[in-house]
């Protein structure tokens, strides 16, 4: 049996390990509770430039610029952020920039805030319509395999890959106040 703490700290570490293995050198993100440990790991990694964004669509340009300069970049965002990127995603498709987007899901299993639901419910469809291959992770033991495959497809195949981290995996947002 494993404690919930172990699960919480292990899957972001697995993602970070794949970033290192794949040679990811830039990571763009908007601060997010679900991605907090992965963001910390990237900030503490001297080989990764962490770029905090004002809106997720900035990250799409960042990925393109990094690729032009010969570096691989990944994006971390919440499902709501996917909606902010739609037109900018066309840059990736038009030029064939490989990209990995890790999406923490809101507005699904266990969601307490109905305002998160409309975007959360269409996030995967929006990504597919925008040209992404999408993979969904429900449990921590699938993270290693799927993130590894996703990085390979994106960076070796110049494909746009989105990996959805379900609310069951990341845990329900706790109402802490």
């Amino acid at each position, binding site marked *: 049996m494993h404690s919930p703490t172990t699960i919480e700290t292990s899957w972001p570490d697995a993602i970070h390990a794949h970033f290192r293995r794949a040679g990811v050198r*830039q990571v763009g993100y908007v601060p997010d509770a679900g991605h907090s440990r992965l963001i910390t790991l990237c900030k503490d990694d001297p080989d990764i430039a962490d770029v905090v964004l004002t809106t997720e669509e*900035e990250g*799409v*340009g960042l990925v393109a610029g990094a690729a032009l300069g010969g570096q691989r970049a990944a994006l971390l965002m919440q499902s709501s952020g996917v909606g902010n990127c739609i037109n900018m995603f066309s840059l990736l498709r038009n*030029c064939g920039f490989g990209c990995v987007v890790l999406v923490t899901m809101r507005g699904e299993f266990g969601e307490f805030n109905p305002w998160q639901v409309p975007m959360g419910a269409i996030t995967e469809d929006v990504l597919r319509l925008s040209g992404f291959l999408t993979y969904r992770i429900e449990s921590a033991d699938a993270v290693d395999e799927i993130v590894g495959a996703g990085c390979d497809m994106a960076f070796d195949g110049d494909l746009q890959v989105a990996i959805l981290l379900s609310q069951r995996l990341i845990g329900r947002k706790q109402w802490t106040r």
Partner: protein
Amino acid sequence: MMDRRDFVRQLLTGRGDLLVVPGLGSATYDVAAAGDHPLNFYLWGAMGGTTMIGLGLALARPDRRVVVIPGDGDLLMGLGSLATIGVKQPNNLVIVVLDNARYGETGMQPSHTDAGIDFVAVALACRFKHARTVSRIEEAADVRDLVHKGDGPILVNAKIDPEDVPRVLPLRDGHAIKQRFIAALHSA
């Protein structure tokens, strides 16, 4: 105010190994008119994203100088990216915004800068090392020096005439523009 083609031509004279990212619309045509070059990453879309492409490129290649040339409408759409650039402080990145206070592609409607919205003040508030407005063609050489040697991040607000000039259309295939740029950069 300056003739846009004359200003961009002078800006890119003797460009050396400068990496150039013009924004969609007239900025891309101006840069093409100054002379096609494999180290131009022409944009035909991605409005609002031009400066962030410059940031990703500047971070990836700290050994090279990067100039981003958006129009005023493009920069307004990505205004938050100035704050993002201010956080990262890339010293090799210069933004030269071609500001005619108009949306040229859609019929010359006035933009926010026509109402006095000030990119220089925004850039300084976003911790840019230097920001200035230029409106005389005699200042183009100074801007060129800033692009090649200035301590970035730098923003130059270039006030240009709101006149329609003939389109000069460069490559439009995104894959081709990307591959040509990468090949030229990595063979250097």
